[in-house]
């Protein structure tokens, strides 16, 4: 059903399928319940309006929701393909707000062969942009490909 990923078949510049997600307050609140991060910047629109949060006065999505989404691009490919996630790293460069649609992508930028082939891994550059092309997240992942 799922094709195993072979390290020697991965090329530099391989673009993983990107994924998009529409953000709503409902999804942000559901993520708060799932992640147990109930910071009011995510779930209290009235308070955010009162303090004019980040100059626009709206709630913002969890940075970790964006990072999990960026990681999903990798694990959608990696886990069914027999690999392991070693590292996930991201910087959140612009707020994600209700009403935004974000698109995450990943590209293989480095190949790391090892004497023990079970330790071979690749590095991927991760990006996430909103509907206006504004970069909301940038990061890196390392995926171990033992096949």
């Amino acid at each position, binding site marked *: *059903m*799922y094709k195993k990923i072979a390290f020697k078949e991965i090329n530099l510049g391989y673009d993983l399928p990107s994924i998009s*997600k529409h953000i709503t307050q409902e*999804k942000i609140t*559901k*993520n708060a*319940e*799932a*992640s*147990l*991060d*109930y*910071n*009011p*910047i995510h779930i209290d629109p009235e*308070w955010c309006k009162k*303090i*004019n*949060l*980040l*100059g626009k006065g709206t709630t913002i999505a*969890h*940075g*970790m*929701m964006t*990072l*999990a*989404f960026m*990681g*999903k691009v990798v*694990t*959608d490919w990696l*886990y*069914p393909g*027999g*690999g*392991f*996630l*070693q*590292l*996930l*790293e*991201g*910087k*959140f460069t612009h707020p994600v707000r209700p009403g935004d649609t974000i698109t995450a992508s990943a590209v293989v930028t480095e190949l790391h062969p090892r004497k023990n082939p079970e330790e071979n891994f690749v590095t991927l550059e991760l990006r996430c942009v909103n509907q206006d092309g504004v970069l909301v997240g940038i*990061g890196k992942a390392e995926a171990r490909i*033992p096949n």
Partner: protein
Amino acid sequence: MSKEAFLENYDTNFFNYERAQRSWDELVVGETYEFKPFVVTEERIRLYVEGTEDYNPAYVDEEFAKQSQFGGLIAPPTIVVPIKFASTPPDHWIKLPGAINPGKKLIFGVPVRAGDTIYCEGKLIDKFIKRGKKYTVEEVRITNQRGELVCLWIGGLVLQYQGNPETINK
């Protein structure tokens, strides 16, 4: 399977402990934090899968997971987020209302599985001011009941509402 258990003073309303929070100035690089061990249940994993809308077969398809490199169902790797928040006392700066997340680095070891008891040991490894904003950086070593490394979590927050003149009108 054990039920998940939260801290006695666990509170989803971060405002309730805002006054108990220390200011950025009071934090000392090198200080360590004690976190309560957390049992990860099937229900918590299900909630997290649904909350992140990530239905990877490794998390939800028992047949696939048994045959996979994992040998059974696993939790999404970023399950360390609810684990961290469940384990952390309400007066820890990670729960300061208004604090903003600039980024994180997660180095993964073994995956988390339902039934695991997860332990977190934290340390403030840096605090700095950049462009007028006050940052913290924490390193958290996250392990399971077998002492295996689950994740090394490195990152912190911008403590936005700590009298920082750049944000005083926000």
